[in-house]
């Protein structure tokens, strides 16, 4: 007996009708915006060799990836992310192009999710990568583009938070602690676990880096964060990181995004992966980030080409959950003919669709069956085609 022949795997779902329209609308608006800024589309395979993600083990532990083997027994994964395949592509195929290269993509990513926790294992993402520039201009471009996308989809209800991972790296780098202790400290900051963080940093006493780390999860808010952050620590690139963040923040202020932007210097997720400015986007009413991104200058080097890069990805379905659901897609006309006039009926459908209407072909032999179908489907008009065309109301038939 087949037990699983009528259901989809955990964490996946079928999308029907308006769900597809809603996803396509959001993705379409975003990709149109990306194209208008000079980004070009790339499509990479849904599956990749495991080795492509091997160097990202800290970011995507092996238990988080769906795996299979190819016909030669080589280990493959369903891609858990789109950026790493693009880094592979950039290193292998783009190094001869004029830099920077601007790319966008849309596609599914696959992540093994916790059992029964309401998280999808198949996510549809649309995102951009700006490869070959490490300038502040490209950071600003990226954050502004992210904000423009958020605003286009969610209107006034979005917030974007910024961080520069260089600040955290400067602090943790100057702390004399083992790699394990540093990772524990990082996790406590990520979770804003003030109590455990305080305990971990207790042994370091009045060490300025430890004091600043202890305060890091609270360096969260508006402009006032900068003054505090500057005063807490300055060595090891901390000041330069804050300068970069502050400059971007000020430019966003002059773009009237001031009240949309938050600073959170405690945003230390994937600290190994990111190298500079990082950001996440939120919509009021959505319990998870709808966008995340940042600068990852070391990733493409892992594939042999030292290219700096920055980018972000939208979780399209989470973003689409705030936009108004699209109108149900009802055909305008049901076209019916007797068996003598099949070709005329199809010609009539052609001319209706040329006018921009949606016309459905009736496959029924009898007009009353066609009318019954039209009523149940909610179609308001029937065109009866013989030597001439007669419009009928299914309700009166």
């Amino acid at each position: 007996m087949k037990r699983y022949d009528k259901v989809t795997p955990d964490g996946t779902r079928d999308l029907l009708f308006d769900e597809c329209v809603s996803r396509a609308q959001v993705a379409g608006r975003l990709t149109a915006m990306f194209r208008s800024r000079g980004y070009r589309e790339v499509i990479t395979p849904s599956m990749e060799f495991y080795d492509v993600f091997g160097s990202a083990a800290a970011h995507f532990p092996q238990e988080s990836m769906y795996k299979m083997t190819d016909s030669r027994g080589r280990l493959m994964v369903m891609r858990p992310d789109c950026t790493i395949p693009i880094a592979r592509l950039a290193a292998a195929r783009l190094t001869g192009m004029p830099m920077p290269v601007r790319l966008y993509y849309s596609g599914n990513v696959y992540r093994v999710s916790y059992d029964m926790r309401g998280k999808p294992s198949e996510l549809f993402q649309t995102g951009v990568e700006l490869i070959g520039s490490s300038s502040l201009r490209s950071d600003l471009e990226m954050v502004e583009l992210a904000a423009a996308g958020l605003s286009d989809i969610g209107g006034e209800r979005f917030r974007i938070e910024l961080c520069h991972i260089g600040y955290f790296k400067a602090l943790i780098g100057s702390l004399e602690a083992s790699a394990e202790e540093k990772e524990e400290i990082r996790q406590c900051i990520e979770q804003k676990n003030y109590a455990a963080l305080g305990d971990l940093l207790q042994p370091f006493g009045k060490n300025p880096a430890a004091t600043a780390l202890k305060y890091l999860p609270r360096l969260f808010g508006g402009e006032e964060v900068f003054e505090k952050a500057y005063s807490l620590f300055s060595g090891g690139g901390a000041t330069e990181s804050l300068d970069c963040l502050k400059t971007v923040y000020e430019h966003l202020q002059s773009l009237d995004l001031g009240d949309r932007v938050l600073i959170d210097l405690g945003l230390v997720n994937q600290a190994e992966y990111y190298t500079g400015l990082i950001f996440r986007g939120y919509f009021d009413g959505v319990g998870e980030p709808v966008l995340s991104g940042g600068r990852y200058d070391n990733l493409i080097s892992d594939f042999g080409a030292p290219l700096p890069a920055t980018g972000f990805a939208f979780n399209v379905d989470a973003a689409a959950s705030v936009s108004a659901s699209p109108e149900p897609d009802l055909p305008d006309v049901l076209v019916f003919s007797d068996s003598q006039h099949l070709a005329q009926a199809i010609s009539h459908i052609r001319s209706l669709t040329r006018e921009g209407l949606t016309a459905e072909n009736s496959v029924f032999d009898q007009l009353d069956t066609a009318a019954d179908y039209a009523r149940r489907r909610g179609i308001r008009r029937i065109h009866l085609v013989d030597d001439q065309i007669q419009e009928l109301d299914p309700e009166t038939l």
Partner: protein
Amino acid sequence: MKPIRIALTKGRLEEKSVSLFEQLGYDCTAVREKGRRLILPVAGTNLEIVLAKAADVVTYVENGVCDIGVVGKDTIMEMGGTFYEVADLGFGRCRFALAVPRGVDFYEGYHTRCIASKYVNVARAFFEKKNMDVNIVKIEGSVELAPILGLSDAIVDIVETGATLKENGLVVAETIMEVSARLIVNIASLKLRKQEIEPFITQIERYLAGGKQDA
């Protein structure tokens, strides 16, 4: 304005959470006289309280349908997940322990041990750290029964006073971790509703800090 929704763990932590909120000046009459209602307003504020089982508190907060939660560190360790864990509330103190029948040296010999626990992920992580292969069996009810019946060599469980262990001829072989109630916050909620949530957290922190000074 959408209310800030707080999920409290039913039972042992509920009473302590409610009295904490009352000492902070919140009117929890609706919670005290809840009847069959599931969502309980805090009069005069924009707060709402939901009572849920511990694991569900984590699920609700993680998915953003509740903004804030009060839940034991034991549940957080067992479930994992993505949220902010902003305060140790100090009550509901107990510990995770490895307990064995009295007089047994758990680490003696080389046979693969069988461990009974309701907290299989905590047990697995504990033995992984020790590079020990063990068989873990999930038990839903009184875990102490498993070694008595001969199913397992030891148990991993929450220990408060140790009285239950003692009555069943078990002793703590090793403490795995101290646990207590935690205040957790949904990530997006903290970002989007900072002005409402942060003062609440600060109020709790101040109260906790004050309590420590008194002690």
